[in-house]
């Protein structure tokens, strides 16, 4: 589609002898919303700080728009950051906060004034010029932090868990707000989060990270529907991950029962991991499905019921809008398209790097 704007080449970084990033390579397209997603300590924030210039990689290069910026100071980079805890200048007014970068660049007063107005309008906080940051709510402060960054017209906006400190409702509102901003500004957003729902909602492209390695990258649909390994499947949403045997192409034996599937090329009688999303497990009348089981647990979740079904020695997690009472006998049916087959990692180490090799 579009051209690479930022390329990370073989980046490694350790702190106190602990390897945080190991030979990480990543390309980020112009004008895309890219999310680095992973549990805490996976290296996502370090990656962002290396792009922002706050950390230097031990090895590797950062290429920005064709130029090597690995050793460039943060104040010389054409990108701006929105920090986790807003990081507003508390002793300055909102207008002074937004003007900070422009004043350093010696822009004229009238230009700065226009820009402040434009930025406040963009984040829906018109008329807040003379307020102090302390008098604003968390969501408002975060929007000011975004306004302060975008008035500098960066090519890339880096966002480090910007919604982490907000409550759920505010977070959801801000997700739409950020998506809208991204479309209006037409710049690249690189977003760091540990919240998989946030990542799925906003991103064009998700990079799932764990232990300093990229586990998988792709569109939200691809990451969710076709996880490449057990880590990704488990991290993105709930799932049933079951060690199984690939009998041959398009046929897999799960817990002793044969299921039709659509995957090919795993060989014959090979051990594999299968991922089945809880909403893809269909509960039918006993003997109408592939295997039979008993409902052992039931929780009402609002949108759907969450049920535990004991079948063939495995406790299946099932999401359904149709209620099956605890103790009832059910059949389990799975559409071949909804069975995702993954290679079994040979070792724990390989599990971490399976994507990068």
């Amino acid at each position, binding site marked *: 589609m579009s051209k690479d704007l930022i390329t990370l080449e073989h980046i490694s970084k350790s702190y106190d002898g602990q390897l945080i990033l190991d030979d990480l390579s990543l390309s980020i397209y112009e004008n895309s919303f890219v999310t680095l997603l992973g549990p805490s300590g996976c290296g996502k924030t370090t990656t962002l700080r290396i792009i922002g210039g706050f950390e230097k990689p031990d090895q590797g290069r950062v290429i920005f728009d064709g130029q090597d910026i690995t050793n460039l100071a943060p104040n010389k980079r054409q990108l701006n950051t929105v920090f986790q805890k807003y*990081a507003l200048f508390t002793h300055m007014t909102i207008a002074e906060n937004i003007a900070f970068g422009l004043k350093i660049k010696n822009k004229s007063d009238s230009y700065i004034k226009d820009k402040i107005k434009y930025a406040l309008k963009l984040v829906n906080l018109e008329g807040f010029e003379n307020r102090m940051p302390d008098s604003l709510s968390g969501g408002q402060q975060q929007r000011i932090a975004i306004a302060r*960054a975008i008035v500098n017209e960066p090519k890339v906006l880096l966002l480090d868990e910007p919604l982490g400190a907000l409550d759920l409702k505010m977070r959801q509102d801000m997700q739409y707000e950020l998506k809208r901003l991204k479309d209006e500004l037409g710049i690249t957003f690189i977003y760091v989060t540990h919240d998989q729902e946030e990542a799925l909602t906003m991103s064009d492209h998700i990079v799932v990270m764990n232990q300093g390695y990229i586990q998988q990258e792709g569109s939200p649909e691809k990451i969710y529907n076709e996880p490449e390994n057990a880590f990704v499947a488990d991290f993105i949403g709930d799932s049933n991950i079951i060690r199984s045997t690939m009998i041959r192409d398009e046929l897999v034996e799960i817990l002793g029962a044969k299921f039709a599937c659509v995957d090919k090329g795993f060989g014959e009688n090979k051990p594999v991991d299968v991922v089945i999303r809880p909403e893809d497990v269909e509960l039918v009348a006993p003997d109408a499905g592939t295997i039979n089981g008993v409902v052992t647990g039931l929780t009402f979740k609002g949108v759907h019921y969450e049920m535990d079904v004991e079948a063939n020695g495995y406790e299946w997690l099932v999401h359904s809008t149709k209620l099956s009472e605890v103790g009832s006998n059910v059949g389990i049916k799975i559409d071949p398209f909804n069975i995702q087959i993954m290679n079994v990692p040979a070792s724990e180490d390989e599990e971490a790097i399976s994507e990068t090799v």
Partner: protein
Amino acid sequence: MRKVLERIYLAIILIFMYAPILTLIVLSFNSSKSRAKWGGFTLKWYINLLSDEAVASALFNTLSIAVLATIFSTIIGTFTCIAMIGLSSKLRSIIMGITNIPMINADIVTGISLMLLFRFLHISTGFTTILLAHITFNIPFVMLSVMPRVKNINFYVYEAALDLGASRPYAFFKTILPDIVPGIVSGALMAFTMSLDDFIITYFTKGSGFETLSTLIYNEVKRGIQPEIYALSALIFVVVLVLLMIVYRAPQAKTKEK
């Protein structure tokens, strides 16, 4: 009823605390030398005081020591706090503990040990030794006041300034310094106050022939208290009171302004 009792209780406490000082201030305006009799209002003790050369030189000594001790202890204390940012929190609390000990240590112990140290090092007592002593006991007060500010420095704000194009020094002066200035100011005022009203440590480190206000008063008292001393004590009380009010007011006023 409860409210009335509360008021009475508060009044009693305040009377106990301030009655002696009030007596002193009242007596400093008493034209009679007697401590038991009111002989009419006068300012003559204050006027006598101002024309007294010994007092003038003691005042000069006190102020110059206080000012110099404040400057040095504020600079040393502040830089120590900033340097301690890089330490682990465990090491930091150990160092803070060590620096806090001189504050709770009895002044007389501090005074005598400093005197012994100066003797041992053959530093002749006088202005220099008092100044060194005052700097020493003031540093913990400065650190106590600056450290909480330093601990709360939000480094993301510093990075945000860099991110927006600021150079490192510009970012420091625009983001980190404003955050710790209230701590530095109240630390300095605290140090100044402590230096101004110290007697014991000064007494042990001053040697002979050099007087500050507090040691001068003490010497005068030995010869029998003159009403000028009331006037002088009243003045010292007022100055210290005003300084302390500034110390406690300064940080609050700053936050309110926000």
